[in-house]
């Protein structure tokens, strides 16, 4: 479990705080979405989780290890993997397999174990057969997957993704999100940073950040039910959520929070059924 306790962070003593009284917990195997407008401190918070930045005051405990404690830094880095936004700036190797071998090599693992991990992680992210490919010839989506695999080869218990789908086409986004779900399914806790509200629907818990503080927390349903507040933060709720919210605003009797298209279809068709009187085959909407 990761415990963030009263975290405050400033880049310099006299500077205004970037993060301010942040309290949060991330349970083992949990899928946490961290959402907020640009410049709210999401990435800064993420960099605290594996000790790239240390709190000005307050503490972060990862499975009992304090991120300020340099004697456990290596174990901390092993436990919490970070996937940064731009894959070009984190791929170290000239070929895919070399890049994946970088992390395990830093852990002084024997060659046979490194080879096993390279093969395994490439299979997990769906890039089996890419071992010898030069990294600069990969597509944007493939580079992301290599960046994820490179961190995954360290076998972390927590994985932090900083806007993993930015600049990708819809197919590329789906591919990355599927991999993230799959990794969470295998027991790795996920911290998913995004400003795309569509991506928080799958999470167990949502943290909303604004101006360096956690301004809202709860399940995706709870957070998304506060549409007006989200809009005030400059975050657009998923289209179906907003559609139903507007229907409700205009006085229609529909469920308050709807996260998926399926739920929206159900809610709207039951509304139509009720509007068009009671039952009868003719009254049923033609879809």
């Amino acid at each position, binding site marked *: 479990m990761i415990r963030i306790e009263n975290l405050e962070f400033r880049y310099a003593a006299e500077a205004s705080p970037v993060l301010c009284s942040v309290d949060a917990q991330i349970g083992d195997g949990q899928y946490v979405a961290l959402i907020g407008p640009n410049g709210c401190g999401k990435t800064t918070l993420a*960099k605290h989780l*594996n000790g*790239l930045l240390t709190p000005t005051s307050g503490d972060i405990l990862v499975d009992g290890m304090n991120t300020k404690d340099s004697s456990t830094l*290596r174990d901390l*880095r*092993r436990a919490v*993997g*970070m996937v*940064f936004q*731009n894959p*070009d*700036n*984190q*791929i*170290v*190797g*000239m*070929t895919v*397999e*070399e890049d994946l*071998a*970088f*992390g*395990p*090599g*830093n*852990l*002084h*693992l*024997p*060659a046979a174990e*490194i*080879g096993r991990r*390279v093969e395994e992680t490439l299979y997990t992210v769906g890039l089996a057969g890419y071992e010898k490919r030069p*990294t*600069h*010839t990969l597509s944007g989506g493939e580079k992301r997957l290599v960046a994820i695999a*490179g*961190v995954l080869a*360290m076998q972390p218990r927590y994985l932090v993704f900083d806007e993993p789908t930015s600049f990708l086409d819809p197919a590329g986004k789906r591919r990355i999100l599927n991999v993230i779900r799959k990794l969470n399914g295998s027991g790795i806790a996920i911290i998913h940073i995004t400003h795309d509200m569509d991506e928080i629907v799958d999470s167990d818990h949502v943290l909303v950040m604004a101006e360096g503080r956690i301004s809202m927390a709860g399940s995706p349903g709870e957070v998304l039910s506060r549409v007006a507040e989200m809009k005030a933060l400059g975050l657009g709720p998923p289209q179906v959520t907003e559609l139903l919210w507007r229907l409700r605003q205009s006085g229609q009797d529909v469920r308050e929070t709807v996260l998926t298209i399926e739920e929206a279809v159900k809610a709207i068709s039951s509304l139509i059924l009720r509007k068009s009187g009671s039952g009868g085959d003719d009254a049923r909407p033609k879809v």
Partner: protein
Amino acid sequence: MLAQRCEIMFHLGQYIPRPSVVHALDPRVKILATLMLSMTILQAGPAKAVVLSIFLLGGAWLSRLSWRDIGAALKPLVFFFCFLFLLHLFFTDGRPLFPAFPAITAEGLSRALITTWQFMALVVCAALLTMTTTPSELISGIERLLRPLRAVRISSHDLAIMVSLALRFVPMLLLEFHRLREAQLSRGADFRAGSIMTRLKKISSLTSVLVIQTFQRADELAQAMEGRGYARGPRTYLRELKMGSADYTIMISTLVFIAALYVLSV
């Protein structure tokens, strides 16, 4: 399209995958053989030059490289070879070869021939190494050869990481340079007009942007590497180099060949 163009620029004279004995050799053997051959080439006279040429062509044949591949390595330097040849031909004192042209001497001709051959042979020798060895193999070979340096507190692992990062970022910087240039062209910049000085100024304005971006990249890269547990000093690798019987055979025969050249002083 842009990426492909940079790809071609980067790969000129670079690794050519072929199923050959030379490709399969331990990179350390190839690096050492190249170094020894290069030193011999620099001291070679006409007779040695002929023998060494045959040896190099034999190496190219064993590597399954074609004349065209060798030509591709030499081509960018044709101008340099011609310049070198003419320089020695015209500016060496000695007996005039033709009474009508006193500048051309017999000594000049032989010096021009041997010096130009030396440089061409060096390029071919280096090309044989880089065309049959991937950059990663080269780096791990150099890393292993430099391990004794830890006696003077220089870590070959750190050197290897530095070289491989530099190589890894070359294609990306080229791509970025083209992007910047095209972004400026699309806003009406003209890199062809004006005197050499104004053109240089325009190009240098691109360079400063590139340098700033590179520093930002380096900063992020450092954080990503730290996040993946990087620390200076020893580390382990996916492939540890191991000398096989073919490696010893080639190593020893190259040594014997060079020793024979000196002993027989051909």
